């Protein structure tokens, strides 16, 4: 099931070891990132609180904040479904990574403007005491998630994907 593509260059010992490990690493990243996204989406319920978390960033007019508050958790859920099913795996990984980059930018802008807010990454959100912000942790976490997404985007080939069943790769 992991026969190398015939266009690949002749292998060295090291390359074949990577070829053996990579599909499982990608699978682990897919499952891990999907779990993260599902947790993030579910913990943002109910949407009224998610809207409030978005508003705390003070970046969008109320109508836009409301739309983001309602749809962001659903989008996270949809990405998780794609990653788990292995449908358009490469693109789902890339979009997840970009989403994390957008989150990092949002948090960085909160830091730059001196806001004291909870990132609202996994529910919660809103104002916190100035001493109780956890921006460093949130950004570090999002960098790790972005790296997982990027790995999936670069090496999408992995076991248990719809992509394989649909003949996108062997």
């Amino acid at each position, binding site marked *: 099931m992991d026969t190398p593509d015939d266009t690949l260059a002749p292998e060295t010992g090291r390359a074949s070891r990577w070829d053996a490990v990579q599909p499982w690493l990608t699978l682990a990243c897919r499952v891990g990132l999907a779990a993260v996204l599902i947790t993030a989406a579910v913990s943002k*319920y*109910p*949407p*009224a*609180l998610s*809207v*409030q978390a978005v*508003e*705390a960033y*003070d970046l969008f007019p109320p109508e836009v904040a409301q739309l983001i508050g*309602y*749809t962001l958790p*659903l*989008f996270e*859920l*949809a*990405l998780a*479904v*794609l990653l788990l*099913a292995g*449908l*358009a795996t490469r*693109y*789902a990984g890339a979009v997840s990574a970009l989403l994390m980059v957008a989150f990092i930018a949002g948090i960085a802008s909160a830091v730059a403007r001196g*806001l004291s807010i909870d990132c609202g990454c996994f529910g919660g959100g*809103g*104002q916190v005491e100035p001493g109780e912000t956890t921006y460093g942790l949130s950004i570090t976490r999002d960098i790790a998630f972005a790296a997982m997404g990027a790995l999936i985007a670069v090496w999408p080939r992995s076991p248990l994907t*719809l*992509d394989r069943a*649909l*003949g*996108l790769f062997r």
Partner: protein
Amino acid sequence: MGSEARRRSRERLKEQRRKEKRAAKRNRTLMVLTAAALVVVAIVGIGYLALSADRKSAAYDGALAPRALQEDGSVVMAQPDAQAPVVEVYADYQCPACRQFELLNGDVLKENAADGRAIVHYRPVSIFAQQQVPVSSNSLRAGAAARAAADHDRFVEYNDLLFENQPTEGKEGFTTDELKDWFADTDPTEAQQEQFDQRLDQEAAVVTRFTEEYLPALTEDAMEQIGQETLGTMVLTDLLAWGADHGHDPSFLEGTYTGQIIEATGNAYTRYSGDNAFRGTPSVYINGELLDNNSAMTARGLNEAIASAEPGEVDTEPVSDGGGAE
């Protein structure tokens, strides 16, 4: 020559096969991407419709049940002699989550009260009174204004207007001019507007004195004498009581609506215990039981919680002169 032609034709055939293979792969990729996009649109679209349905189910613009101002400055909205559960709503006018609660479930409360299915007890508080200006001053000024509107039986309408116009946390807002304009939007008589404006000017001065002079001085002294750690565990009313014994006379708050909301806030912290303890806003209680977010922050959850509760008793007394029914 012949072999050269054969070689070229072989090359062409190979090239064509490569092209076909690339095209087939492109088509497969396109198909998979389309499928993935459909999955995303389906999940986001159906989910959004389902979540919005909850929000839209909450709309109500019928007549309000009668309101009665209570001795502690809170307001009860219910049909006369309604046998229904008591829904207490604690909110701070500067609190963003309270705004979300009000936008989502304000109409659910009105409808349940109008239909005699709930006794709605609005209990405005100022949990932000000890924060930095302008968060503290916005919160207190709006609270005092809502109380002044209640003198003219306009609390519920005014409460809506305050949340609709809530300033971003940390920005100056709820100015006296705005607060007066919003009262004018509730169709008062000229005499009522005049009384409201006068009262509001007095309260605004009290709020300024409290947040910019009295409290900073009191906090500094308390920090030195009892330490930050103990201070952190004290609610504002305890701190004021300490101040009264240590040269920070809080008597300028007596008889003011600003003082009343500070006291109401202190009482909220001691009214409930254990799992039901008051910790912040918005807090919604049904017959003294604190609702979790899934119940309080969805229209369906709140409706179900109200429908499944027994009738209850309001724990405050209406003001005797019927100030709410002016």
